[in-house]
């Protein structure tokens, strides 16, 4: 291990960690809604992001559309993509044991991953936009502009989803259906439709993530494997369905990755991230922010 790194390295690591954390928070908002709030299991969430990334990639690379304008396409597309997948696969077995849902969505993830492999090959794809070179210097620390935009996007998206859940009738219907589906039905809420809406929205946020990430990230058929696991880690850390917690959880994991990478050699930092996750699951399953329930 290498402990004699300079202050500059550390401050850069922290800055990058915050940027990465914003990214992790952004991709995890959807899962917070789907799994955290609605308790729907979707192990293909990472592959949904992969779909969003590819869509954004093609719009930018082939359609020559500005990445931030692709949002107009990626978000609605992912909304209906999510609804389609939900209707065809998850919804019929929503009442089956949890394990069946896990297996089914793992199957979906295998399908999406390998379809992408067949159609787009295993090559790493990325786009070159004028944004890529925009950097902001704060003392010795360098921050890339697209990453900063993604961080802002993550904050805004978190607030938007929070506002939606808190203040609109549809948002409250989603929370009510999750907390007590029977009572929700008895209050005149069409619960199956509410599930569909929640899943669609959770998927749509990944369209947004795809568009915001593509200027500085890459895409590849297996890009969702690691990022999908990160989403689950962030949601658990954030405390299942807590949107603010999700943001904090994203930052924690982002910092763990970059600071870890400065300390541990090679990709061992990943092990550090996983360890944080397992320790949290065992000792503080209610997440970073929530108080322990008695």
């Amino acid at each position, binding site marked *: 291990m290498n402990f004699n790194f300079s202050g500059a390295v550390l401050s850069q690591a922290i800055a990058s960690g915050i940027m990465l954390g914003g990214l992790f928070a952004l991709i995890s908002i959807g899962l917070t809604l789907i799994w955290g709030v609605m308790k729907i299991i979707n192990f293909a969430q990472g592959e949904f992001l992969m779909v969003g990334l590819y869509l954004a990639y093609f719009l930018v690379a082939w359609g020559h559309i500005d990445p931030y304008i692709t949002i107009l396409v990626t978000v609605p597309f992912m909304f209906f993509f999510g609804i389609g997948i939900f209707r065809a696969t998850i919804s019929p077995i929503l009442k089956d044991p949890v394990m069946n849902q896990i297996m089914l969505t793992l199957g979906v993830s295998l399908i999406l991953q390998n379809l992408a492999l067949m159609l787009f090959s295993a090559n790493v794809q990325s786009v070159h936009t004028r944004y890529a070179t925009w950097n902001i210097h704060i003392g010795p620390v360098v921050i890339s502009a697209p990453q900063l935009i993604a961080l802002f996007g993550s904050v805004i998206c978190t607030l938007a989803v929070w506002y939606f859940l808190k203040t609109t009738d549809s948002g*409250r219907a989603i*929370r009510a259906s999750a*907390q007590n589906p029977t009572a*929700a039905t008895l*209050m005149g809420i069409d619960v199956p439709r509410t599930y569909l809406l929640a899943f669609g929205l959770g998927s749509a946020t990944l369209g947004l993530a795809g568009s915001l990430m593509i200027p500085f990230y890459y895409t590849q058929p297996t890009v969702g494997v690691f990022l999908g696991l990160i989403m689950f880690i962030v949601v658990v850390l954030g405390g299942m369905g807590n949107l603010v917690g999700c943001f904090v959880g994203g930052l924690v994991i982002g910092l763990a990755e970059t600071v870890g990478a400065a300390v541990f050699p090679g990709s061992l930092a990943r092990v550090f991230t996983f360890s944080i996750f397992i320790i949290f699951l065992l000792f503080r399953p209610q997440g970073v922010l929530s108080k322990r329930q008695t």
Partner: protein
Amino acid sequence: MLSVKNIVVKYGMFRALDDVSIDVGEGQIVGIVGANGAGKSTMINAVSGMTKPTSGTVMFEDTDLTKMSAHAIVRAGVVQVPEGRRLFPDMTVYENLLVGSAHKRAKAERSENFDKVFTLFPRLKERETQVARTLSGGEQQMIAVARALMSSPRILLMDEPSLGLAPIVIQEIFMVVRQLRDLGLTILLVEQNVHHCLQISDYAYVLETGQVVLEGTGHDVLENPMTKAAYLGMAVQEEPASN
């Protein structure tokens, strides 16, 4: 207003309701009493669409409720206050009430309904911003009733509102039920608490193992010795238990 005809509900082999008919007239409180497992909750759930009957009809004025989904029945004005409250535990009192009035018809009357509910339950106004699960049992029951009222019901189905509450709170709850009737609401009330229920009921049915064994005005049923028998098993005890 509500008329249940020859309804049969089966859980597997078990007949929870076996050819039961009841009628609820407009502006009445109709009580259904009976011991645990007599089929009272099944009755309520069959009306509100949560359980689909094997045979028989449930008519609400001119609509056949057995053909409608549960949430559509609520929108039509038949609203249940479920057993054990079933609040949305992590939402505030105010949010619980808002969820109650989320469908179109109720949304139009949302502000009047709020006024009505807060006049009936001033205590809920004070607790507006508290999370539902932190409230006492009695207060939670009030939220459940208030939440149902928010969806502009024409008939209210109440399933054991006194369950697990202290005697003084039970009194309060029954007073509210009577008040609601006086405001013109129709109520179907299912209860284990026989005395209270029958005292306020205009008409009542006694259920035993899925069948109506007695019916009449609340007063008549209360005075009938068979009512007690259905509960404590006193009359039956005199027979030899062997078969």
